[in-house]
Protein backbone atom coordinates (compact mmCIF):
# COMPACT_ATOMS: atom_id res chain seq x y z
CA UNK A 1 0.00 0.00 0.00
CA UNK A 2 1.44 3.35 -0.98
CA UNK A 3 1.67 5.85 1.82
CA UNK A 4 2.10 9.57 2.17
CA UNK A 5 4.02 11.44 4.79
CA UNK A 6 1.21 12.70 6.98
CA UNK A 7 3.62 15.03 8.77
CA UNK A 8 3.76 17.24 5.72
CA UNK A 9 0.89 19.67 5.30
CA UNK A 10 -1.07 19.38 2.09
CA UNK A 11 -1.29 22.55 0.06
CA UNK A 12 -4.81 22.30 -1.33
CA UNK A 13 -4.47 25.68 -3.00
CA UNK A 14 -1.79 24.56 -5.43
CA UNK A 15 -3.09 24.91 -8.98
CA UNK A 16 -4.44 21.85 -10.71
CA UNK A 17 -3.19 20.74 -14.11
CA UNK A 18 -6.05 18.35 -14.92
CA UNK A 19 -9.74 19.19 -14.48
CA UNK A 20 -12.69 16.92 -15.20
CA UNK A 21 -16.38 17.61 -14.91
CA UNK A 22 -19.57 15.96 -16.13
CA UNK A 23 -21.12 17.34 -19.30
CA UNK A 24 -24.37 15.42 -18.93
CA UNK A 25 -25.51 12.08 -17.56
CA UNK A 26 -23.40 10.07 -19.97
CA UNK A 27 -20.33 12.15 -20.85
CA UNK A 28 -17.38 13.68 -19.03
CA UNK A 29 -14.96 16.39 -20.16
CA UNK A 30 -11.31 16.35 -19.08
CA UNK A 31 -9.01 19.30 -19.67
CA UNK A 32 -5.32 18.46 -19.64
CA UNK A 33 -2.68 21.11 -19.09
CA UNK A 34 -4.88 23.80 -17.57
CA UNK A 35 -1.93 25.12 -15.59
CA UNK A 36 0.46 25.39 -18.52
CA UNK A 37 0.60 28.85 -20.04
CA UNK A 38 2.48 27.74 -23.14
CA UNK A 39 0.92 24.47 -24.22
CA UNK A 40 -2.57 23.03 -24.23
CA UNK A 41 -5.05 22.81 -22.74
CA UNK A 42 -6.12 19.65 -24.46
CA UNK A 43 -9.77 18.62 -24.09
CA UNK A 44 -10.90 15.01 -24.01
CA UNK A 45 -14.46 13.79 -23.93
CA UNK A 46 -15.19 10.38 -22.48
CA UNK A 47 -18.28 8.30 -21.96
CA UNK A 48 -19.48 7.08 -18.61
CA UNK A 49 -19.16 3.36 -19.16
CA UNK A 50 -22.17 1.71 -20.73
CA UNK A 51 -21.85 -1.62 -22.41
CA UNK A 52 -25.14 -1.59 -24.29
CA UNK A 53 -26.13 2.02 -24.85
CA UNK A 54 -24.99 4.36 -27.65
CA UNK A 55 -21.77 6.19 -26.84
CA UNK A 56 -20.12 9.31 -28.23
CA UNK A 57 -16.62 8.66 -26.87
CA UNK A 58 -14.62 5.86 -25.31
CA UNK A 59 -14.84 5.19 -21.56
CA UNK A 60 -11.99 6.50 -19.40
CA UNK A 61 -10.50 3.03 -19.00
CA UNK A 62 -9.83 2.91 -22.74
CA UNK A 63 -8.11 6.28 -22.77
CA UNK A 64 -5.93 5.30 -19.84
CA UNK A 65 -4.72 2.39 -21.97
CA UNK A 66 -4.42 4.73 -24.97
CA UNK A 67 -2.03 6.86 -22.93
CA UNK A 68 -0.02 3.72 -22.18
CA UNK A 69 0.07 2.82 -25.87
CA UNK A 70 1.34 6.31 -26.69
Amino acid at each position, binding site marked *: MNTLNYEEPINVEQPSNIIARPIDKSTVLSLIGTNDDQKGPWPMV*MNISHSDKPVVAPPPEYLSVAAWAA
Partner: protein
Amino acid sequence: MGVAYRGNIPLEDIAVAFHINPMESATESLNPGFSVTETVTLTGDISESEIVRLQRAAHFCPVGQALTKGSMVIQDVLMWSNGETEVIPITTDIPKLAEPRLPLLASGTVHGSYLKNTKEYDDAGNMIHEGESKVYVQYDTSARSYRWTYQAGHSSEGWVPPPFPFSLGAWAASTVSTLNKLISYKISGLQVELSALNRGNSGQSQGDAASGIVRNRQVLRKIRIDGALNPTISQDIRNALQYDPISIAYKHGGIPVDNNIVIELKKPDN
Protein backbone atom coordinates in the same frame (compact mmCIF):
# COMPACT_ATOMS: atom_id res chain seq x y z
CA MET B 1 11.80 5.07 -28.10
CA GLY B 2 13.62 7.18 -25.54
CA VAL B 3 14.84 4.09 -23.71
CA ALA B 4 16.07 2.56 -26.96
CA TYR B 5 17.87 5.76 -27.88
CA ARG B 6 19.59 6.12 -24.52
CA GLY B 7 20.49 2.43 -24.49
CA ASN B 8 21.82 2.49 -28.05
CA ILE B 9 19.30 -0.15 -29.06
CA PRO B 10 18.78 -0.08 -32.85
CA LEU B 11 15.01 0.16 -32.65
CA GLU B 12 13.67 1.45 -35.95
CA ASP B 13 9.96 1.39 -35.20
CA ILE B 14 7.46 0.17 -32.64
CA ALA B 15 3.73 -0.53 -32.50
CA VAL B 16 1.64 -1.85 -29.64
CA ALA B 17 -1.85 -3.32 -29.49
CA PHE B 18 -3.85 -3.88 -26.34
CA HIS B 19 -6.96 -6.02 -26.37
CA ILE B 20 -9.27 -4.97 -23.55
CA ASN B 21 -10.85 -7.93 -21.73
CA PRO B 22 -13.77 -6.93 -19.49
CA MET B 23 -14.06 -8.47 -16.02
CA GLU B 24 -16.97 -8.30 -13.61
CA SER B 25 -16.11 -5.93 -10.77
CA ALA B 26 -16.51 -7.72 -7.45
CA THR B 27 -17.74 -6.00 -4.32
CA GLU B 28 -15.52 -7.82 -1.83
CA SER B 29 -12.34 -7.69 -3.83
CA LEU B 30 -10.78 -5.00 -5.88
CA ASN B 31 -10.30 -5.40 -9.55
CA PRO B 32 -10.24 -2.64 -12.12
CA GLY B 33 -12.93 -4.23 -14.28
CA PHE B 34 -10.67 -5.25 -17.14
CA SER B 35 -7.42 -6.91 -18.08
CA VAL B 36 -5.34 -6.41 -21.21
CA THR B 37 -3.60 -8.67 -23.69
CA GLU B 38 -0.58 -6.91 -25.07
CA THR B 39 1.09 -7.41 -28.44
CA VAL B 40 4.23 -5.47 -29.25
CA THR B 41 5.74 -5.22 -32.72
CA LEU B 42 9.35 -4.14 -32.91
CA THR B 43 11.29 -3.26 -36.03
CA GLY B 44 15.05 -3.32 -35.92
CA ASP B 45 18.07 -5.55 -35.70
CA ILE B 46 17.52 -6.23 -32.01
CA SER B 47 19.01 -8.92 -29.82
CA GLU B 48 17.10 -11.09 -27.33
CA SER B 49 18.51 -9.18 -24.36
CA GLU B 50 17.51 -5.88 -25.97
CA ILE B 51 13.99 -7.21 -26.46
CA VAL B 52 13.84 -8.00 -22.74
CA ARG B 53 14.97 -4.49 -21.89
CA LEU B 54 12.37 -2.90 -24.16
CA GLN B 55 9.66 -5.17 -22.84
CA ARG B 56 10.51 -4.14 -19.30
CA ALA B 57 10.62 -0.47 -20.30
CA ALA B 58 7.06 -0.69 -21.58
CA HIS B 59 5.80 -1.71 -18.14
CA PHE B 60 8.06 0.66 -16.22
CA CYS B 61 7.40 3.87 -18.14
CA PRO B 62 5.35 6.30 -16.01
CA VAL B 63 1.99 5.30 -17.47
CA GLY B 64 2.87 1.58 -17.46
CA GLN B 65 4.00 1.76 -13.84
CA ALA B 66 0.85 3.57 -12.79
CA LEU B 67 -1.42 1.04 -14.49
CA THR B 68 0.46 -2.18 -13.72
CA LYS B 69 2.70 -1.60 -10.68
CA GLY B 70 0.52 0.52 -8.39
CA SER B 71 3.08 3.33 -8.35
CA MET B 72 0.68 6.16 -7.67
CA VAL B 73 0.37 7.70 -4.22
CA ILE B 74 -2.94 9.51 -4.07
CA GLN B 75 -4.05 12.12 -1.60
CA ASP B 76 -7.74 12.89 -1.80
CA VAL B 77 -9.33 16.08 -0.56
CA LEU B 78 -13.01 17.03 -0.62
CA MET B 79 -13.45 20.76 -1.17
CA TRP B 80 -16.86 22.29 -0.48
CA SER B 81 -17.84 25.52 -2.17
CA ASN B 82 -18.34 27.22 1.21
CA GLY B 83 -14.58 26.85 1.81
CA GLU B 84 -14.58 23.76 4.03
CA THR B 85 -12.12 21.00 3.14
CA GLU B 86 -11.76 17.40 4.26
CA VAL B 87 -8.64 15.34 3.80
CA ILE B 88 -9.58 11.73 3.07
CA PRO B 89 -7.23 9.34 4.86
CA ILE B 90 -5.74 6.50 2.87
CA THR B 91 -7.45 3.34 4.01
CA THR B 92 -7.48 -0.36 3.27
CA ASP B 93 -11.09 -0.75 4.39
CA ILE B 94 -13.26 -1.75 1.47
CA PRO B 95 -16.90 -0.85 2.02
CA LYS B 96 -19.41 -3.36 0.74
CA LEU B 97 -20.91 -1.94 -2.39
CA ALA B 98 -24.68 -1.83 -2.59
CA GLU B 99 -26.57 -1.21 -5.80
CA PRO B 100 -25.98 0.40 -8.23
CA ARG B 101 -22.85 -1.30 -9.56
CA LEU B 102 -20.46 -0.16 -12.23
CA PRO B 103 -21.57 -1.45 -15.63
CA LEU B 104 -19.41 -3.95 -17.46
CA LEU B 105 -17.08 -2.50 -20.06
CA ALA B 106 -17.39 -3.65 -23.64
CA SER B 107 -14.35 -5.32 -25.16
CA GLY B 108 -12.21 -3.60 -27.74
CA THR B 109 -8.70 -2.69 -28.78
CA VAL B 110 -6.25 0.13 -28.40
CA HIS B 111 -3.55 0.30 -31.06
CA GLY B 112 -0.59 2.66 -30.86
CA SER B 113 1.85 3.35 -33.66
CA TYR B 114 4.88 5.58 -33.56
CA LEU B 115 5.16 8.62 -35.81
CA LYS B 116 8.84 8.32 -36.65
CA ASN B 117 9.13 11.71 -38.33
CA THR B 118 8.17 13.56 -35.16
CA LYS B 119 11.45 12.83 -33.33
CA GLU B 120 13.37 16.02 -32.56
CA TYR B 121 17.13 16.54 -32.38
CA ASP B 122 19.33 19.38 -31.21
CA ASP B 123 22.07 20.96 -33.30
CA ALA B 124 24.54 18.36 -32.07
CA GLY B 125 22.33 15.52 -33.30
CA ASN B 126 21.15 14.40 -29.87
CA MET B 127 17.51 13.39 -29.56
CA ILE B 128 15.71 15.85 -27.33
CA HIS B 129 12.11 14.71 -27.82
CA GLU B 130 10.96 11.17 -28.58
CA GLY B 131 8.14 12.37 -30.78
CA GLU B 132 4.48 11.51 -31.02
CA SER B 133 2.29 8.45 -31.44
CA LYS B 134 -1.05 7.89 -33.10
CA VAL B 135 -3.52 5.76 -31.18
CA TYR B 136 -6.60 4.03 -32.59
CA VAL B 137 -9.30 3.05 -30.14
CA GLN B 138 -12.03 0.59 -31.04
CA TYR B 139 -14.92 -0.09 -28.67
CA ASP B 140 -17.17 -3.06 -29.52
CA THR B 141 -20.61 -2.94 -27.96
CA SER B 142 -23.33 -5.48 -28.71
CA ALA B 143 -24.99 -2.90 -30.97
CA ARG B 144 -21.97 -1.78 -33.03
CA SER B 145 -18.26 -0.97 -33.05
CA TYR B 146 -17.01 2.54 -32.44
CA ARG B 147 -13.65 4.00 -33.52
CA TRP B 148 -11.67 7.06 -32.52
CA THR B 149 -8.16 8.43 -33.11
CA TYR B 150 -5.91 10.20 -30.63
CA GLN B 151 -2.38 11.58 -30.59
CA ALA B 152 -0.01 11.98 -27.69
CA GLY B 153 3.71 12.30 -27.19
CA HIS B 154 6.66 14.52 -26.52
CA SER B 155 7.54 17.56 -28.61
CA SER B 156 8.87 21.06 -28.19
CA GLU B 157 5.82 22.65 -29.83
CA GLY B 158 3.34 20.78 -27.62
CA TRP B 159 0.71 20.04 -30.26
CA VAL B 160 -0.48 17.00 -28.36
CA PRO B 161 -0.58 16.07 -24.68
CA PRO B 162 2.28 14.06 -23.19
CA PRO B 163 1.28 10.49 -22.32
CA PHE B 164 1.34 10.75 -18.54
CA PRO B 165 -0.91 13.84 -18.31
CA PHE B 166 -3.11 12.14 -20.93
CA SER B 167 -3.48 9.18 -18.57
CA LEU B 168 -4.25 11.51 -15.67
CA GLY B 169 -6.98 13.13 -17.77
CA ALA B 170 -8.55 9.70 -18.18
CA TRP B 171 -8.26 9.04 -14.45
CA ALA B 172 -9.94 12.34 -13.54
CA ALA B 173 -12.79 11.47 -15.90
CA SER B 174 -12.98 7.97 -14.46
CA THR B 175 -13.39 9.47 -10.99
CA VAL B 176 -16.25 11.69 -12.17
CA SER B 177 -17.81 8.75 -13.98
CA THR B 178 -17.57 6.47 -10.94
CA LEU B 179 -19.08 9.01 -8.58
CA ASN B 180 -21.93 9.63 -11.01
CA LYS B 181 -22.67 5.92 -11.37
CA LEU B 182 -22.34 4.78 -7.77
CA ILE B 183 -24.01 7.65 -5.96
CA SER B 184 -27.74 7.60 -6.54
CA TYR B 185 -28.31 11.34 -6.19
CA LYS B 186 -26.82 14.20 -8.19
CA ILE B 187 -23.68 15.78 -6.69
CA SER B 188 -24.06 19.47 -7.38
CA GLY B 189 -21.01 21.24 -8.81
CA LEU B 190 -18.93 18.06 -9.07
CA GLN B 191 -15.46 18.69 -10.45
CA VAL B 192 -12.33 16.56 -10.08
CA GLU B 193 -8.91 18.20 -10.24
CA LEU B 194 -5.44 16.69 -10.21
CA SER B 195 -2.05 18.18 -9.46
CA ALA B 196 1.26 16.38 -9.24
CA LEU B 197 3.00 16.70 -5.90
CA ASN B 198 6.35 15.49 -7.27
CA ARG B 199 7.04 15.91 -10.96
CA GLY B 200 9.45 13.65 -12.78
CA ASN B 201 11.38 14.47 -15.93
CA SER B 202 11.88 12.65 -19.18
CA GLY B 203 15.42 11.52 -18.46
CA GLN B 204 14.58 10.19 -15.03
CA SER B 205 11.51 8.40 -16.36
CA GLN B 206 13.47 6.74 -19.12
CA GLY B 207 16.18 5.71 -16.70
CA ASP B 208 13.59 4.17 -14.40
CA ALA B 209 11.92 2.40 -17.31
CA ALA B 210 15.19 0.97 -18.56
CA SER B 211 16.19 -0.22 -15.09
CA GLY B 212 12.81 -1.52 -14.00
CA ILE B 213 12.59 0.96 -11.13
CA VAL B 214 9.16 1.78 -9.71
CA ARG B 215 9.11 5.43 -8.73
CA ASN B 216 6.15 6.61 -6.69
CA ARG B 217 4.33 9.60 -8.12
CA GLN B 218 2.32 11.60 -5.65
CA VAL B 219 -0.86 13.23 -6.87
CA LEU B 220 -3.35 15.46 -5.11
CA ARG B 221 -6.91 14.70 -6.19
CA LYS B 222 -9.37 17.42 -5.28
CA ILE B 223 -13.07 16.71 -5.46
CA ARG B 224 -15.06 19.91 -5.53
CA ILE B 225 -18.69 19.95 -4.52
CA ASP B 226 -21.27 22.70 -4.08
CA GLY B 227 -22.58 23.51 -0.64
CA ALA B 228 -21.47 22.98 2.92
CA LEU B 229 -19.78 19.92 4.40
CA ASN B 230 -22.30 17.08 4.56
CA PRO B 231 -21.15 13.90 6.36
CA THR B 232 -23.51 11.66 4.40
CA ILE B 233 -22.31 12.91 1.03
CA SER B 234 -18.71 12.75 2.25
CA GLN B 235 -19.05 9.12 3.26
CA ASP B 236 -20.82 8.20 0.02
CA ILE B 237 -18.00 9.80 -1.99
CA ARG B 238 -15.31 8.08 0.09
CA ASN B 239 -16.98 4.70 -0.42
CA ALA B 240 -17.47 5.22 -4.15
CA LEU B 241 -13.85 6.30 -4.68
CA GLN B 242 -12.72 2.88 -3.46
CA TYR B 243 -14.41 1.34 -6.51
CA ASP B 244 -13.10 3.64 -9.20
CA PRO B 245 -11.46 1.29 -11.74
CA ILE B 246 -8.39 3.35 -12.55
CA SER B 247 -7.84 4.30 -8.89
CA ILE B 248 -7.90 0.58 -8.09
CA ALA B 249 -5.24 -0.04 -10.74
CA TYR B 250 -3.14 2.87 -9.52
CA LYS B 251 -3.24 1.94 -5.83
CA HIS B 252 -3.53 -1.83 -5.64
CA GLY B 253 -1.06 -3.28 -8.06
CA GLY B 254 -2.49 -2.65 -11.41
CA ILE B 255 -4.37 -3.91 -14.38
CA PRO B 256 -3.82 -7.61 -15.02
CA VAL B 257 -1.75 -8.09 -18.16
CA ASP B 258 -2.16 -11.42 -19.88
CA ASN B 259 1.12 -13.26 -20.23
CA ASN B 260 0.43 -13.90 -23.85
CA ILE B 261 2.83 -11.24 -25.07
CA VAL B 262 3.92 -11.81 -28.64
CA ILE B 263 6.85 -9.90 -30.05
CA GLU B 264 7.28 -9.87 -33.80
CA LEU B 265 10.80 -9.04 -34.68
CA LYS B 266 11.24 -7.54 -38.11
CA LYS B 267 14.57 -6.81 -39.70
CA PRO B 268 14.52 -3.36 -41.31
CA ASP B 269 14.34 -3.31 -45.10
CA ASN B 270 17.83 -2.40 -46.36
